[in-house]
């Protein structure tokens, strides 16, 4: 997460400004965000299972893109032993696919790095197919068995053309396999966004950051 600290944009603050920005649409001036080509939704849900026993799932979601049409859900389930070793799954619904690949009998969602270009990914986990994120050694190709934060990539079409989105997930790693769903985002039609990308704040919002903002402004001008 170190990279986020040095970025010029504080996502949490931006989300707070969205509310102000909405009010500003009627009030007139000084919106703090740019015309949004990217929509970000803060979620901050703990992906903790509460169901006990094999075959019971806790479902988190659905989380929709653009209000309707395409969505995804997380699921958590206990293994056969009913111990704390869980499984984390992600499934897309509607005209959607998840960046990932098929290996053997399983679909594996990719764990994308911050900044990865979404439009160039291979979207191997089809709609309604269960994407297995982690379940210990049983899923040997899973990219989510180590603790840390990563990004899921989505591709969907709500009828207007292809759109891309990402979801930021922090996982505790095997064998715990719990985690936190932090936020997700999607771009307008055709916006080739990158994993973790959020809207550029307006020049004023950048300056309001103070020293960092002034430095960013000058660097942008120089480039």
């Amino acid at each position, binding site marked *: 997460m170190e990279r986020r600290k040095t970025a010029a944009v504080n996502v949490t*603050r931006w989300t707070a400004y969205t*509310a102000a920005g909405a009010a500003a649409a009627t009030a007139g001036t000084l919106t703090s965000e740019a015309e949004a080509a990217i929509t970000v939704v803060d979620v901050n849900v703990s992906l903790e299972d509460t169901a006990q026993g094999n075959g019971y799932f806790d479902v988190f979601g659905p989380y929709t893109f653009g209000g309707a049409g395409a969505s995804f859900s997380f699921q958590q389930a206990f293994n056969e032993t009913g111990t704390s070793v869980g499984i984390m799954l992600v499934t897309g619904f509607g005209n959607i696919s998840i960046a990932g690949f098929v290996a053997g009998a399983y679909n594996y969602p990719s764990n994308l790095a911050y900044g990865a270009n979404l439009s160039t990914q291979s979207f191997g986990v089809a709609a309604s197919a269960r994407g297995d994120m982690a379940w210990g050694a049983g899923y040997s190709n899973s990219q989510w068995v180590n603790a840390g934060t990563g990004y899921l990539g989505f591709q969907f079409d709500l009828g207007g053309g292809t759109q891309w989105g990402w979801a930021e997930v922090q996982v505790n790693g095997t064998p715990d396999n719990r985690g936190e769903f932090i936020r997700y985002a999607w771009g307008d039609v055709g916006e080739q966004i990158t994993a973790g990308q959020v809207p550029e704040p307006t020049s004023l919002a950048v300056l*309001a950051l*103070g020293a960092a903002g002034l430095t960013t*402004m000058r660097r942008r001008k120089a480039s």
Partner: protein
Amino acid sequence: MDQETGSKKLLLIGWDGADWEHINPLLEQGLLPNLQAFIDSGTVGNCATLGPVLSPMLWNSVATGKHAYKHGIYGFTEPDRTNGGARPFSSYSRKTKAFWNICSQVGLKTNVINWWASHPAEPINGCVVSNLFAGVKPGKEGPIIPPDVIHPVELRKQLGRFKMFPQELTSEHILPFIPNAEKINQEEDSRLETFAKVFTETMTTHALGTAVMENEPWDVMAIYYTCHDHFSHAFMNFHPPRLPWVKEEDFEIFKDVIAGAYRFSDLMLGRLLSLCNDDTTVIICSDHGFESGAGRTIGNPREPAGPAADHRQYGIFLAKGPNIRPGEQVYGASLIDLAPTMLTILGLPIGDDMDGRPLLEIFNEQPEIKTIPSWDDATGEYPDGMHAEEKELNPEDAAELLNQFVALGYIDDPGADKEKQFDTAEVECDYNLAQNYMFVSMPEQAIPLFEKLVAHSPWEDRFIQQLAQAYQRSGRLKAALTVIEKAYDIEETKAVAIRVLYAELKVALGADIEEVRPVLEQVEKSPHRGNQLRNRVAALYSKCRCWKDAERVYLGAVKHDQDDARAHQGLSRVYCRLHENQKTIDHALTAIGLIYRLPHAHLNLGIALARTGHHQEAETAYHNALRISPNFAHAHRCLVRLYNKLNRPEMAFQHTAIIRQAFDMRKAKREQAMRDRVAPPPANIPDFPSEAGRRETLLKERPTRVDERKPSGKEFVLVSGLPRSGTSLMMQMLECAGLPPKTDGEREADDDNLKGYYEWEAIKQIQTRRDLLDEEGLEGKAIKVISMLLKQMPYQHRYKIVFMTRPIEEVATSQAKMIDRRGTEGADQSVEELTQSLASHRSNIVSWMEGNPRVEFIQVDYPTLVKDPESVVPQIAAFLGDRLPTPGNLMDAIDISLYRNRA
């Protein structure tokens, strides 16, 4: 951190001029999310200002917990006793420790950004960026940071880069505040320039503050923003609703600036809060409010600091932190309480010599209150950072700040006359100090100052009126009456304040209220500004037991300003006397909620509570009155009555004894007071010119600023530069090329300028002779104007300036040799010091030319011109175009032998 403290960190954010009247509507619209969250989690309220309402005095009271007569900062500028002229008040002039000195000496890492009169930066345990950082100029290698602006000096480079200049702004920054900015004709309208200056000055402070918060250790952090005040002075008249005298088109262009300023402040606040941890206590305060709505008036008093008349009595106070009550209101807070409150938060003792109180009602758990006699006598384990000795300050460094004071209207343009600058600064300091004495009810100390001021300027009505009031408040009623009868024809005068004063004095000296009623009724009808006079009229009716008249006038004052604490206090007395107990309680509580220190409001509250059977509450109210005014006989008498009723004779006896003791002690005083009432004023009170004569002098001394925004359509060719930069040579060249010089021939050729000076002596008076360039035919001539005069050129004209440069060391040496030869005295500086101040001056002028839309200029390097004219002359010819009939002759004047006096 070496000191065990009550809370780990403290952040103080100063928002000059911020006002709840502007904040509340924006909060209701959800436009200030960070401030809203702050309010929800903290304690908030009004913050009463002090007198006079001038920011440098107020913010130093915040810093010291003392009134201005104790802290020594008496306004914007002080006489410069070293260099002559005036300079912004400096940290040398503060006579007592600020909270940053106290924190420093106990070992707390303390950082202070942009505080009033904090230059030179004090060497405290932490970091200081002084208020002169605002005057930093751009240089080729980055901003030029004068010495002593930043402590410690190692941070100069790191922090210096956070100076933001107006040229860096783009439309993306401006349009949210001024969506119709493209409609502004910048040739004629400087308001966009004003916006850019205020915005970048705010950003500079914010960038410095955040940089220090992120990169330097801190226990205590204080950042002062001019933002709200400066935006308000420039743009409040355009804030909705539209005032009748504001043009529709101006309103449409600038109506969003004030709301934008508050919303941008909210974004900045969000950033500051994100740099604090949960253990940080954060305080936001403003030193005064700002008139909006119907409170705005056209024009300001014709006096220095006249714009301060727009300042409202209440600023804002907000606090949140680990031990601050969430979602609460604080009542009766004052600026003077800030320092004691901050020390309490930090677990440090309060100085007994401080004038404020800690705001204990804001805390969840009551902190222990510790006191010491005075922090000024206390030494710490660490240095306090107070300056050991006064060093000379460079006037050039302060010049930009002085210009800003002028631009804001806080001081008269000091011009070039140093003697006048010095004199004006001294007069204003005396006036402000005297007003502060009046504010803290020390008229005896104010009287000698006002006497001195009327002797100095018998044409200034403000001095005469204040002197009379000071006599009145010190009980010298006859002297007060004599002064106003000498200065005014009471029947004829239009000075409403004088009519009120006259009525007060006549009644106090035994006249019946009916004798002065016509005067009071006239005052009541006149549309005068503010409530002060309304309240005085009402108080006079009240004193004469005309309760219904008093009620009517006080209610008029409340209608005018519902937050007028003194009007509410007055109403509490009226209703108390009319036995309307509920109304008494309501108005007394309102008054106390606005300003805590109103002993009469506490007393009236107590009386009404006692009458309605709330004996315990009444006892508290009486004791509160006595806490504020321990010898308040009426409160003691009420307590005697209450304790007798409650059958507590021992307590009744105690207060009876106090009354007797006070009575005995006052006996001598009363006799003296009776003598004072009728004592004449001292013999040195001058004979005043007539009111008309005084007005005439006032208009002459403080003429209305001519609006020089409207362009004349004229364009003049100027040759400028530092003296000894080759300006005379350029004049000769232009003459050869067919552009004759404007010269009076008064200064003849000599050894220093063999071919003559080409000077026009009269141009030196351009500051006062604004029509000098209206002379017929001047547009067809070249005028030599030394760089020091450039900024004073009338704004309505355009200028093409050939600006001569020469290595600064050579200029300094050449000037020194010339002064030697002439046997005159120059600046009392070494060549090195001269070099530095000349460099700073030249950089300042070049920035000014760059930023001035009516100036086109070309810089011509003198040595290059002489050694390699072919490389330079075509540029000059191109720059001046058809202003030169025979540009081919430019080179005829160049004589290499003239490039002399090099180091």
